[in-house]
């Protein structure tokens, strides 16, 4: 019998790139920040992190299997990434049942209800986080005190985040070196700027993300807070450096805003999107009710992405 030869339209070669490889790279990029989180928040970070990951994967599997009845998609690792990012956005002393609810909302509402990876208009991890923030405001804004290899979980000492200190004008602001290393209060993954920058650079080098979104967010925040600090009142408004290093800005701009499905498709669109996130973040931080606004900013700009894609076209040839 003659061998069956494949036939298909061109091209006949492929770059070999896969969704799985991209997700794996994101996970690798998240390793430094994970290690820092585990170091400072110890047992709590371990529990919240593993519960979040396991429940995200489980929910994705169950929904895919029994509700959508499609082929299993956890192999592309996107649920794992969502799990890690959700944990990164939660205080490490959050009760397990809340983490599970967050994962259910992130995967079930944020992702699978739209048809799975690629169809979701909003970043799933942030949908989960914001749902929890609105439902359980107290628990979600009570952060554990960073302590080397802490063995505390629910009983951890609580601490304020740098941004809430700025907002409420109390306490001595943390040193830049603490912000860089992560020795401050906050969610598990957002505390160490160096670890996040390392991860971000890794993603840029591996070409998983492009520089447009993070750079435009950071530049907008820098300019906006710079005007407020140097131009308006340096006593009330914090320095741009503090604004960039404190809170979830780095985590948001490198890992959350760059989420493929929920960010624009063109370079020009990415500038608009990044600038929008930067402005909304600063507005919420300075005048809003919450000390931190990056998650809301990203979700709000996510909603504009279809509009941006419709009106902002790439530079055509000729």
């Amino acid at each position, binding site marked *: 019998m003659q*061998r069956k*030869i*494949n*036939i*298909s*339209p*061109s*091209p*006949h*070669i*492929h*770059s070999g*790139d*896969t*969704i799985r*490889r*991209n997700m794996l790279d994101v996970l690798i990029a998240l390793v430094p920040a994970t290690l820092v989180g585990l170091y400072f928040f110890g047992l709590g970070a371990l529990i919240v992190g593993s519960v979040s990951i396991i429940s995200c994967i489980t929910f994705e599997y169950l929904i895919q299997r029994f509700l959508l009845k499609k082929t299993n*998609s956890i192999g*592309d690792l996107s649920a794992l990434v969502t799990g890690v990012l959700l944990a990164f956005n939660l205080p490490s002393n959050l009760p397990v049942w809340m983490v599970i609810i967050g994962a259910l909302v992130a995967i079930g509402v944020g992702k699978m209800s739209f*048809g*799975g*990876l*690629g*169809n979701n208009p909003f970043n799933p991890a942030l949908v989960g986080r914001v749902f929890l923030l609105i439902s359980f405001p107290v628990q979600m804004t009570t952060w554990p005190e960073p302590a080397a290899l802490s063995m505390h979980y629910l009983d951890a000492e609580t601490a304020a985040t740098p941004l809430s200190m700025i907002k409420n004008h109390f306490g001595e602001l943390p040193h830049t070196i603490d912000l860089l290393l992560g020795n401050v209060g906050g969610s598990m993954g957002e505390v160490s700027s160096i670890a996040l920058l390392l991860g971000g650079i890794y993603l840029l080098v591996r070409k998983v993300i*492009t520089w447009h979104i993070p750079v435009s967010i950071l530049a907008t925040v820098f300019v906006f807070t710079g005007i407020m600090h140097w131009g308006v009142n340096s006593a009330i408004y914090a320095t741009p450096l503090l604004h960039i290093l404190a809170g979830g800005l780095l985590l948001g701009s490198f890992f959350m805003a760059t989420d*493929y*499905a929920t*960010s*624009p*498709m*063109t370079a020009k669109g990415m500038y608009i999107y990044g600038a929008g996130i930067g402005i909304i973040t600063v507005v919420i931080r300075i005048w809003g009710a919450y000390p931190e606004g990056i998650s809301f900013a990203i979700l709000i700009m996510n909603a504009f992405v279809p509009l941006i*894609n419709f009106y902002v*076209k*790439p*530079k*055509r*040839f*000729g």
Partner: protein
Amino acid sequence: MKTFKIGGIHPEENKLSAGKQIVDIPLPKQVIIPLAAYIGAPAAPIVAKGDKVKVGQLVGKANGFVSTNVHSSVSGTVAKIEDAMDASGYRRSSVFIDTEGDEWLETIDRTPDIKRDCALSPEEIIAKICDAGIVGLGGATFPAHVKMTLPKGKKADLLIINAVECEPYLTCDHRLMLEHSEEILVGITVSMKAIGVKRAVIGIENNKPDAISLFNNQIQKLSFKGIEVCPLKVKYPQGGEKQLIEAVTGRRVPSGALPIEVGAVVQNVGTSFAVYEAVQKDKPLIERIVTVTGKSVSSAGNYRVRIGVTLLDVVNFAGGIPEDTGKYVAGGPMMGRAVANLEIPTAKGSAGVLFIREGEAAHREMHNCIRCARCVKVCPMGLEPYLLMSLSENSLWERMESERTMDCIECGCCSYICPANRTLLDYIRFGKSTVGNIIRNRNAKKN
């Protein structure tokens, strides 16, 4: 180093046969000469069953302006005129000739001497090119005389020679340049005269340093006037006409326009060689260089093949089909056509036969679009492939037209890069042909 600005990819080059000299293929028992294997109206057969023909004799006459002559590539008897499967995947009219000896037309100059001087007028040169049935040998197979006859009122100031060969694996142009550099330069000079330009630029990617230095030396040593070499940074699809013009001159051909709009004419280096042979040696286009290649091919190489010899004959001479082949491709891996079997004739546009190994031949499972925007980033025409694909899937032809589908050059960068293995180009190509039909019908109605 120059290159084009928007998009582009860097596939593995795999130029396995770059160091292999061109080898002549022995004549087979029968050749199948396709009458329709190029862009334009099929040629009309002017021979009948039982006719004796010689090498270089006209067997199919051009049918209108956008059409080309077809010549016999062997001497012998016409066996039949019948439809035969070709690289298009369909049966089309062809002339079958049984080979007897190798008797050439007396008018063809078969001496190896290089003839530099050309006293003909531009019109005479173009008439000779038309008679010789030359088509663009880069793959698009557009009749050369049509391209070189400038539309009324347009003037060119530059001839660009496409020696980029950006397709991975293929090396036929590279070898031709190394072994026939002087003939090519004469062909370029003749073409310059026909088009009426004083300047020609040979665009070569810098992965062929030997060809670049050879051309530079030859131009100096033999004092060819007005020809220069422009080394280009390696990037696919630099061989695309519009991309090459931008890379070499910085000019951008507007959407829907021809290169002449920016004063340039582009010619493939193989075509330049064919022009030399047709004008200076009176030899019609009856053979071309074919690269036989693939990762499992033991003797990848370049072969001089008469038009009409089946690819199977070529491959058998070159060592046979490798055991682990999963796909046959006529042409390069990015834009070539997959074929079901190799019993199809070598056409004027067949640049190579590529064997893709079983493991690499199958399309991997397709996933949802994750909107990573890589296709947008690599598209050399600045289009949005992800959008065009979904528009095509949903038959939204008007929107597709306004998103400039017709600009697509079908280079395949989008499908190549897609991490979700989406068949972007399949759908875009289909949409493009549908939109093209809609536009043609609309224009026909208007007139």
